[in-house]
């Protein structure tokens, strides 16, 4: 009689739990390592009075616990905690970015589908779509905000326009690439089923394009946040993180902790946005794991 080694389900569950604890431990370890690097660098440079690449003191590199603590202090006597001010600003910026991101994604996808289908349009427009990537949209952002503001467009919406612009073209390019990535044999199979253009698009090309589209979305999510922050720089928009950054950068030499705290919140916002798109990707895209060896 030969013994059959069957998979035992219980072992799998404990394996998952173990993997999760490892992940959490690793996360804490990375945080600790970063903290250690920061404080270590600071300690060493201050001790040795090294000036390259820059002078290290309490202003240029405050203690991490200093500016983390500043988050939970009041901004002025009797006022709100710094963290609640920043979180409100972050929510404001997030809304702007999200609206813009959505607009850009939908528009970019539509243009991508169009260009993927019509070769002449593609030959004509694609070089510019690609070249537009090099346009410093962030550079003209303040101008755009000012202009739209003069036309009665609410400030936050013009910032969304910036974010939309930053999302639009990467999504277009990746949509085209993704739609064209369908395996030739799969296309032939579709044709053998006498499947029409739309069917082929929906059942084959679109699922094939999803990984590419999500790759663009992940990058654009970050870009939207950055675009929103930059777009807020013209002083008319105080409510977002951009305004806070401007505010605290003016007082930096007196109160460096404020700017560092703001940057921590901005960083968390950027990461959060990214993670949302990542989660969406995990849900939507079922794919064979990458060939990693």
């Amino acid at each position: 009689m030969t013994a059959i080694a069957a998979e035992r389900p219980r072992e799998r569950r404990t394996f998952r739990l173990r993997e999760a604890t490892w992940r959490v431990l690793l996360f804490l370890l990375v945080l600790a390592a970063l903290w250690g690097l920061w404080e270590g660098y600071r300690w060493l440079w201050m001790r040795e009075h090294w000036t390259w690449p820059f002078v290290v003191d309490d202003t240029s590199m405050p203690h991490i616990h200093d500016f983390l603590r500043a988050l939970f202090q009041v901004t002025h006597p009797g006022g709100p905690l710094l963290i609640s001010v920043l979180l409100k600003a972050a929510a404001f910026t997030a809304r702007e970015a999200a609206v813009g991101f959505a607009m850009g994604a939908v528009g970019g996808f539509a243009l991508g589908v169009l260009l993927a289908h019509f070769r002449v349009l593609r030959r004509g427009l694609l070089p510019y779509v690609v070249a537009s990537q090099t346009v410093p949209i962030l550079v003209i952002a303040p101008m755009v905000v000012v202009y739209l503001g003069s036309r009665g467009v609410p400030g936050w919406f013009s910032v969304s326009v910036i974010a939309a612009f930053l999302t639009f073209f990467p999504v277009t390019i990746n949509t085209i690439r993704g739609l064209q990535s369908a395996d030739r044999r799969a296309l032939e199979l579709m044709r053998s089923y006498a499947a029409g253009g739309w069917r082929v698009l929906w059942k084959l090309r679109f699922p094939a394009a999803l990984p590419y589209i999500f790759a663009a979305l992940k990058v654009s999510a970050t870009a939207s946040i950055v675009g929103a922050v930059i777009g807020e720089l013209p002083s008319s928009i105080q409510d977002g993180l951009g305004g806070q950054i401007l505010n605290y950068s003016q007082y930096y030499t007196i109160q460096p902790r404020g700017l560092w705290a703001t940057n921590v919140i901005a960083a968390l916002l950027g990461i959060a946005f990214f993670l949302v798109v990542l989660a969406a990707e995990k849900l939507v895209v079922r794919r064979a794991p990458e060939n990693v060896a």
Partner: protein
Amino acid sequence: MSVPAPAAVQPLPRHGMARLVGRRLQDWLPAAVFLVAVIGAWEGIIRWRHVQQFLLPKPSSIATAFWDDRSELLHAGWFTFQEALGGFALGSALAILFALALARYRFFGTALMPYAIAANAIPIIAFAPITNQWFSGGITKSSKIVIAAVLCFFPVLVNTLRGLTSVNPRALELMESYAAGQVQIFRRVRIPNALPFVFSGLKVAAVLSMIGAVVGEYFGGSFNALGVLILDRARTFQFTSAWAGVFLACLFGIALYAGVAILERLTLRWAPSTSE
């Protein structure tokens, strides 16, 4: 036993110069037509509808402004381009080194990859005021070089690392059967496999570096810098001049991207075409 005639899978590529040029022309004609059409329309619409030149000046006005201001603009552009180039070189070089290290010590590589990807989502530009404070108030190029370098770092790192690790398992088994050392595996298999990925990352970085330098200057910088110049012009309502500056920034960005693309073409000569 006679050898059968080769059933060639792909024909031998022909590099005749005339053929190359001829095909190129065909490819680019629609694009050229569109360009002329767009510029014509832009000029036409503004003239015809008398759209306020407040924000969207005619191309002809921009061209004139560019010509009038050319020496100042080019000086400023060159200054900022150096920042971008410096940041690009610094960030990319560090990223490639890191990627090689992380691929070599796979344990760290797989563990830290998600963190690298997440770190890429941080709005680095928000650190511009801080780097300005670090480097003599932002007057020198260094503060923007740092910003540009950090912007370039993560895309190049993530792409390079992916290229180094997504290797055909058979190729690795083959190397193991030759008892090849890690260095040789890197040289023969991982690095060649990674090259297309590296260039992908470098192209993204090229674009980001110029943007990073210019926008970083919005937070303060030398008067010789393009970003400061653009902002200044915009604030004093000299929009034509501001747009001229913007276009110059575009040109520099495209130039850097094109440089990388050319380098890519030369290096990847052997790969079958990946474009459409």
